[in-house]
């Protein structure tokens, strides 16, 4: 599975939805993922891709990691993966 598919699978699992129900323009709030779910998703992403995600729950907007939509998360993960390589 590619990065996009794996990120969507992680988010879908948090949202208790099928991956096919997750669209890239959705926000985590649209998907019913609360602040605890965000922290769990980020942990799952770090584990899946072996990356460090810069994210502080006190101020999500200030983090370099943009969680404003599913698409922004996929792009941020892709950047972190290419930075690691």
């Amino acid at each position: 599975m590619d990065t996009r598919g794996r990120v969507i699978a992680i988010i879908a699992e948090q949202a208790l939805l099928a991956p096919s129900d997750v669209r890239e323009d959705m926000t985590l709030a649209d998907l019913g993922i609360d602040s605890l779910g965000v922290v769990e998703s980020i942990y799952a992403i770090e584990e899946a891709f072996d990356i460090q995600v810069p994210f502080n729950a006190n101020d999500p907007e200030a983090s370099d990691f943009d969680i404003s939509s599913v698409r922004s998360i996929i792009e941020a993960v892709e950047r972190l993966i290419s930075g690691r390589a």
Partner: protein
Amino acid sequence: MRRVAITGAGTINALGHDVPSTFAAMREGRCGIDQLALRDVERLSVQIGAQVKDYDETARFGRQQLTLFDRFTQFALIAAEQAVAQSGLVLDDALKLRAGAILGNSGGGLSTVDDNYRTVYQEGKNRVHPFVVPRLMANAASSALSMQHGLQGPTFTVSSACASSNHAMGLALQMVRSGAADVMLTGGSEAMLCFGGIKAWEGLRVMSSDACRPFSANRSGMIQGEGAAVFVFEDWDRAVSRGAEILAEVAGFGMTADAGEIVTPSVDGADRAMRAALADAGLSAESIGYVNAHGTGTAANDRTECAALSRTFGNHAGSLMISSTKAMHGHVIGGTGAIELLACLMALREGVVAPTIGYEAPDPDCLLDVVPNVARDAKVEACLSNAFAFGGLNAVLALKAA
């Protein structure tokens, strides 16, 4: 119903190894947060904390004691010894039967757990020291106090995360009030600053990696500390009749549960706890001059706490002094309410309100008087001390000047 006096106080924390040095640091607005010195610190993303400094356990305890005392037990014993000495209590055989110890604690002997997990999991050894269990159990500190001072009445440990100490002191108040005991040693102790203790908190992503800035618009999370504070709670009439110096009156206690979310605080639960403490103390909202806030420096706590204060105190919220001393001594988790009660004693007895240091910019959601950065001289007749724990458990103490 009996009244309850505080007749002794003791502490060891990042600001000092006793009450006078802690008061001096709070007056100066000194920060006890520094680079952490501990094993594997380079593997942590949070490498600062409020550690007890210049501490040599071998100078305080004998070899036999150290095999049994985790750091959190050592801190509790040191604080209790100071408190008992200040109180002038003579614990004779009759009083020992009427005296107990209730301490708050969250992590138990976490360094002991950490060290021994390394031994069996990392180093692959199959044998651990015989005293691992008596060192790590959460009641080790309360039991050590009982044994050290011969206390044979109600003795146990209360664990409610960051509200542990306030729950412990609230129960001690109720014990003395109700006549279940005449004297209680109470407060809390915590020593979570080991690799595993910090790594666990990192996971939640609410820790700051630079500074603790409660109520400031640019706050970035909490910072852990360690230490203990222990007080002597005593039947008021008993304290008066023996001519003891009374440091303050423990006037009331309120506790509530949010029945909401596991880590997200609630305005309603905090508001109800503060109102319950006021009602229990028979104090009006207007009589309160100072509130020692829970003030963790996280986005969620500080915003919620200010909203709750506004709800509880109404118009009086604007004339209240509120401060979080966590920016100085760190968040001492299960011991934090006890160390923060020292700031209340300083306000009531010395007329000095400890500041909220690290404050840089006003947050529109936190526009109360948080005594930013500099301590303030003020006459305070009554105060509250807030603790709001993960799990939605709230515990608030009300103190009056003696």
